């Protein structure tokens, strides 16, 4: 069956605000860079299909799909929108190419949270109107509930989570695409305001604007478009129940299931040995540890120990979120998962500059759709 590779990436951002450009202009810039990166292809004739990943309420438009074509060069072409996580968008493009009907497909996702005046009200609006919404409060208390249960079940600690925040903010200093690079220490995290016990302010990623476009191609044309195609070995996605009353709060089941789907396709049986580095969702600091365990990158209860020993640092044996993750790059709504994919591609190409990891062949990108969802995706990529 057809193999599929990522042959072009384009990114603009990420910045805390972007008042200088409209969302269309932001998308146009990311697309222009991606097309240039993919052998300077002309989207008006060289791309067979386009997928945007967007959600109406983030954009502030009903039926946002219709506002997408112009800035991607997709007018009068074959386009649709995936209202979901961006790794699900990647999986959809992957499948389009595997049908044999498409050779080159573009996937776009962006976030412009600075355009939203009531960001957290929109998150609340995603909660059940009968059972949950009337209780009020900031919806991120759900992350507090989850973090508390996760620490209780696994024995990982608040200190371990704070170490994630310190590591990822520092990693972000080496990433020009990151909005929130900073040198902070554990005390800074502990002294930051308590927000949702056991979580403090610095355990929470902050909004950022930016856009990313990826170009996927079949093995027939991939090498013509890029000297270093990055192969998609497996993609998976899964959703748990929306019911907060019956959901698993300790472990990220959606991440386990999405990873198992991706591992099956990629023929990976021992992820901790076969995967060289990973970019995992860390919208909240504990999420990095919880996702590492769900992805079987370590045993349950072991993630905190790994970060304490430096294993997941840039010089460690299993670097996690060298890009800075969401804590360092910023929470870019549906584009948060695209950030993870982008970094894996850049690392596997050897283009990561001062944050380049040595001898990497297999990387993993994993995403979560954020509060209050229990949806996520996983992709395994390789340069050989």
């Amino acid at each position, binding site marked *: 069956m057809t193999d599929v590779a990522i042959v072009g990436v384009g990114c603009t951002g990420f910045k805390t605000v*972007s*008042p*200088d*450009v*409209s*969302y*269309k*202009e932001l998308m*146009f810039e990311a697309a*222009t860079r991606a*097309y240039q990166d993919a052998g300077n292809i*002309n*989207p*008006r004739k060289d791309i067979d299909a386009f997928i945007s990943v967007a959600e109406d*309420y983030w954009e*502030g438009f009903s039926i946002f799909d219709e506002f997408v*074509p*112009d*800035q991607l*060069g997709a*007018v009068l072409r074959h386009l649709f929108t995936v209202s979901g996580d961006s790794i699900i968008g990647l999986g959809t493009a992957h499948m389009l190419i595997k049908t044999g009907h498409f050779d080159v497909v573009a996937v776009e996702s962006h976030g*412009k949270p*600075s*355009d*939203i*005046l*009531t960001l957290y*009200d*929109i998150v609340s*609006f995603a909660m059940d*109107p*009968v059972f949950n*919404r009337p209780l009020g409060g900031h919806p991120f208390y759900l992350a507090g509930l989850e973090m508390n249960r996760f620490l209780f079940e696994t024995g990982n600690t608040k200190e371990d989570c704070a170490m994630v925040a310190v590591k990822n903010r520092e990693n972000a200093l080496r990433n020009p695409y990151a909005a929130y690079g900073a040198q902070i220490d554990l005390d800074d995290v502990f002294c930051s305001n308590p927000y949702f016990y056991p979580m403090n302010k610095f355990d929470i990623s902050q909004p950022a604007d930016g856009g990313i476009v990826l170009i996927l191609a079949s093995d027939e044309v991939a090498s013509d478009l890029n000297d270093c195609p990055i192969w998609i070995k497996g993609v998976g996605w899964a959703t748990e129940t929306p019911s907060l009353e019956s959901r698993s709060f300790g472990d990220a089941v959606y991440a386990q299931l999405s990873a198992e789907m991706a591992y099956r396709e990629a023929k990976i049986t021992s992820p901790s040995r076969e995967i060289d580095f990973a970019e995992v969702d860390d919208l909240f600091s504990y999420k990095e540890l919880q996702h590492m365990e769900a992805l079987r990158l370590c045993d349950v209860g072991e993630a905190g120990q790994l970060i304490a020993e430096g294993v997941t640092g840039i010089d460690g044996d299993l670097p996690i979120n060298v890009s800075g993750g969401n804590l360092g790059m910023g929470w870019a709504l549906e584009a948060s998962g695209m950030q993870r994919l982008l970094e894996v591609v850049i690392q596997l190409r050897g283009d990561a500059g001062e944050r380049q990891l040595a001898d990497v062949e297999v990387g993993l990108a994993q995403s979560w759709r954020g509060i209050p969802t229990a949806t996520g995706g996983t992709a395994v990529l390789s340069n050989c």
Partner: protein
Amino acid sequence: MSEKIKHFPGEAVSGRDIRDGKVPCIKHRPNVKYLWSAGVAMSRFIEGMKAGKIIGAKCVKCKRIMVPPRAFCEECFRPIDEYIPVKDTGTINTYSVSYVAGDASRIKEPILVAVIDLDGASKGMGILHILGEISDWKQIKFGMKVKAVWKPANEREGSVTDIKYFKPFKEG
């Protein structure tokens, strides 16, 4: 009700019953607010409206002058080259007569909506707006010339409504 069925079993529920809370239902008004960055192209358009001008964008490759303006040519997929004003006169491309208001209520004076191909813009490019100073809508014809009627300068706020409406216009 059909001819065969004169009465459904059970109790009829009216809209009022729902509003009065006789039927269990959930009411929620979301707090959903945005402040979009206008960006490069739309900012030019907004500033133009304040100045009483309709701004277009020119692509030298396909030679189109596009209204509304955009930062890129969607046909050639390249940045546009220049922002230039087009005329505030044009011809009616298509029109409709809207007898229903935004809340679906009937309105006595129908709203005359039209797409107007603006003079100075490329064919098929222009503005969606309303028509005024027309006593009987049957006077509207395809290809009819119309001209913008602007609000006074001190009342303009950078909106398409800085043009009150387009009215019939005879050239020369």
